[in-house]
């Protein structure tokens, strides 16, 4: 189980491929990988967005991501999980978050991936400030899952 915060832009699919290969004990054992990638859009609430700053609470963010993944591994039978989340300055089309879950069967993988994303969205201390045409503004709440 791996949790990472990244200051620089990352390629989720490349990271995922590398991680999967590096986890030798996964080979031949997983039948199901459920993956979610959240990406910055170039509009929000009907307005063009030029950039975004992702603030976090150093220490608490990592701790909560870890707790969320641990809870998922208690609820479902998982072989591995990877969570990578951006912080800092983002531009449209930049990946924000990657959640990947490996399991023997698909039901656990799907459910755990969804659970981790919903928990992350509601509990992990991150805050988005958008740079829109009309100025910068803090995003006040997330879209419901």
């Amino acid at each position, binding site marked *: 189980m791996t949790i990472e915060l990244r200051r620089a832009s990352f390629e989720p699919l490349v990271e995922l491929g590398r991680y999967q290969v590096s986890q030798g004990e996964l080979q031949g054992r997983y039948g199901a990988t459920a993956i979610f990638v*959240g990406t910055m859009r170039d509009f929000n609430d009907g307005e063009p967005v030029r950039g975004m700053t*992702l*603030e*976090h*609470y150093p*220490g*608490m*963010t990592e*701790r*909560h991501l870890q707790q969320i993944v641990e809870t998922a591994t208690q609820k479902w039978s998982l072989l591995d999980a990877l969570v990578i*989340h951006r912080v800092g300055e983002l531009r449209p089309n930049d990946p*924000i*978050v990657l959640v990947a879950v490996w399991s023997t069967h698909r039901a656990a993988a799907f459910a755990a991936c969804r659970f981790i*994303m919903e928990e*992350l*969205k*509601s*509990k*992990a*201390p*991150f*805050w*988005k*400030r958008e740079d829109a045409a009309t100025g910068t503004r*803090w*995003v*006040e*709440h*997330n879209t419901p899952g």
Partner: protein
Amino acid sequence: MGIQVKYFASLRDRLGRAEDRLAATEGMTVAAVWAALWPKTPLPPNTLTAVNMEYASLEQSVRDGDEVAFFPPVTGG
């Protein structure tokens, strides 16, 4: 050493500061920390609170050495 207080995101911008420090009093709660530091500013609705990096209620008691944080709803992911 006192209590370390942190503010994040829009709340920090509104208050114009990121951190405060104050000495704990006997039986002090999270709500009392806010009231001591911001006597003229009611805590904005929906503000979340954490003690030592775990979510906490306004009624949770705190003491010297604790880290207390106030922040708006989270919007990650």
